[in-house]
């Protein structure tokens, strides 16, 4: 039974690339991404495949890692070109009204603790920027929006892939190596500078999660019926 399992996995290993191409092209948003952001689309595809080979397969060789890092730089650079806008962190005029009003509440409650220049700088400048940054970051963690989001026109998966995505994400989290974590952190960091729809930056990671989930499902299926 053990050998059979191994054989099945090897068979599936050969078809990884096919699986990647299938996953990367089967959703309607692939067309939108490839036409609107071609550089991001191509680098994402290359990066996701090399990332997969480096972190989740036996093909973890030095040369793969080097190319993976290079392609990741491409993803990061194209994200900066297309999506990143640091100015989104600056408060709008309506947000400034709220910040000014809140000063009154802080003075009432915190008195002198609030009135020194460090506190004023923190509450008037740092806190609002950090808050907007975190709100932007939050969009990449919005699981519901990947399947039904109204605001996110690019990333919308079919409901039927939900179990596959969940299983794949779990596999992704549990098997990720340190270099993979660094890539994830960089993408999360960049998403903070994208107004609202930062989840597009997770496109390569979504492909990997879906491939991992599909592979797991196919392997279980093959073991059951072989």
């Amino acid at each position, binding site marked *: 039974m053990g050998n059979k399992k191994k054989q099945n996995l090897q068979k599936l290993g050969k078809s990884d690339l096919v699986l990647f191409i299938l996953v990367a092209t089967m959703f309607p948003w692939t067309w939108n991404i490839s036409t609107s952001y071609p550089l991001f689309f191509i680098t994402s595809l290359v990066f996701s495949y090399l990332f997969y080979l480096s972190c989740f397969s036996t093909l973890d060789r030095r040369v793969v890692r080097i190319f993976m890092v290079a392609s990741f730089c491409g993803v990061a650079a194209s994200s900066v070109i297309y999506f990143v806008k640091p100015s989104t962190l600056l408060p709008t005029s309506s947000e400034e009204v709220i910040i000014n*009003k*809140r000063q*009154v*509440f*802080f003075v*009432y*409650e*915190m008195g002198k603790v609030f009135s020194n220049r460090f506190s004023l700088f923190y509450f008037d400048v740092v806190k609002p920027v950090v*808050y907007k940054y*975190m*709100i932007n*970051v*939050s*969009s990449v*963690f*919005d*699981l*519901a*929006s990947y*399947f*039904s989001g109204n605001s996110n026109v690019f990333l919308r998966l079919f*409901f039927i892939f*939900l179990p596959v995505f969940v299983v794949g994400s*779990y596999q992704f*989290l*549990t098997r990720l190596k340190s270099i993979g974590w660094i890539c994830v952190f960089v993408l999360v960091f960049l998403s903070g500078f994208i107004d609202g729809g930062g989840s597009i930056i997770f496109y390569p990671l979504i492909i990997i999660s879906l491939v991992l989930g599909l592979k797991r499902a196919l392997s279980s299926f093959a073991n059951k019926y072989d």
Partner: protein
Amino acid sequence: MTKKAFLFILIVALAAFLRFYMLGSIPAGIHADEESHGYNAFSIIQTGKDRYGQSFPILFRSFGSYQPPVLTYLTIIPVYFLGNTVFAARFWDGLFGVILVGATYFVSTILIKEKRLKASYALISSLVIALSPWAIFYSRLTAEGTLGVGIFAISILCLLLSINKVKYFPLATFFLALSTHAYYSERVIAVVFLPLFLLLYRKNFKKNVRVVIAGLLVFVVIMLPHLAILTTGALTKRLDQVGSLGTFNFFDFIKRYLMYYSPRNLFFDTGKGLGRISPEMGVYYTVFLPLFFVGLVNFKKLIDRSYHRFFVLLILITPVSAALTSDGFYPLRALDLIWLYGFVISVGLLVFLMKLTKYWIKVALVFVLSASCIFSFYVSYFVLFKYELSRSYGNEYMLLLKKLDEYKGRSILIDSTRDPGVGLRYAYLTKYDPVDLQKQLSSQMTPSYYSGEVKRNEVYSLGNILVRPFSWNDACLRDTIIIGDPATFSQEQAKEHNLKFEFEIWRIDVEKSLVAYSTNPTKEQCSN
């Protein structure tokens, strides 16, 4: 006293402080649900009946709906001893918030696999729940949810114990059934979870069929009051109001169901509102997000294998009742699930601390983490929430009540169009005679108490104060002070109807919120 016991007491004391500190004054007012529990408790103490004159109800009719009964009956105790105060109305939620921290500790000691980690994991879990925004926030207002999750947590503790010692099963079913009388969500969760739990652990219960039957009997007996009013419309009134059963769409249901698993909704701000947490605050702190992922990765490894199925089953079932409503993410309705996430986050923190070698670094890290959490919560809740959501808690009417002391001999009319809770708020805070109020509200008893047809706007006549929706005919009342919000009457309208300005009330968020005019009817305007 052992170090472990000392730390546990310290955590419980911290939890109690965060839940009871300024409980009577923040939120800065009293919500309609809170005053309803408070006044019904007061009315039962005085007359044995609720404010409508119903003897010891199964569900309490209130503002167009029905409130679960456990909290009202429990509130009798603080109202009796502490009087008709805001603190008394909120007391049990605060206390159950502390009880939840204790229950979390004991549940954690059962869940964890390795003996040497039991105490550490239990202390970390109880600390996580003691500090979590959702746990503090909902413990500081009378929303029944904390009571529901508190009783549910005790039932989970007993169910976990019953897997190895079946004698705990009847106690578990007692608390599980009781939780259905504490909050709406548990009605669905308990009924779905119990049979599946028995199915999952059937091997453990096979040899003790008698105890299982006894437990099931306890469950059925406590559920009987629900059955008694099953067909009346009262039991499902709340679901009718907030639910989507009439226009049920499977994909919408899945969409709402998924919202409760989305890290965005759990660790980031999802907006203001009564069902949400305080401003700029998520259900859990954002800093807990990496711990959550670390916890997810290591959960299987650290938690006892025999409880994996139990935990997964709970995680899958607990958001169902919240997803059945038509609202988006509404944490109050999924507190049981949110509580369970605390165990995952705690695994993450435990794993993280285990990586550190020096003891003092661990202590310093936990201290810094706790301090930063408390600071974030202080800014969000004790400052921003206090002011920015003061309107939702009728802060202006609390200020008005003090002002009305100056107008004791005058007839007062307060417009309740936009806040139907004003009359009952004053009835509770002024200890208005329940017998008289029951007479006034007796017209609401037709159709019958549990009919499900409940009028939202009621007229309250409390001595010289009359509370009801305002109409311009009221400008013809003689020697009366009429009070309403800026939407009730503009300055031009007041001038047109010959009203004389008396005073205005500014809410603590520096918004003009109430204006008072005295009537001065003229023959031309009021001839009809």
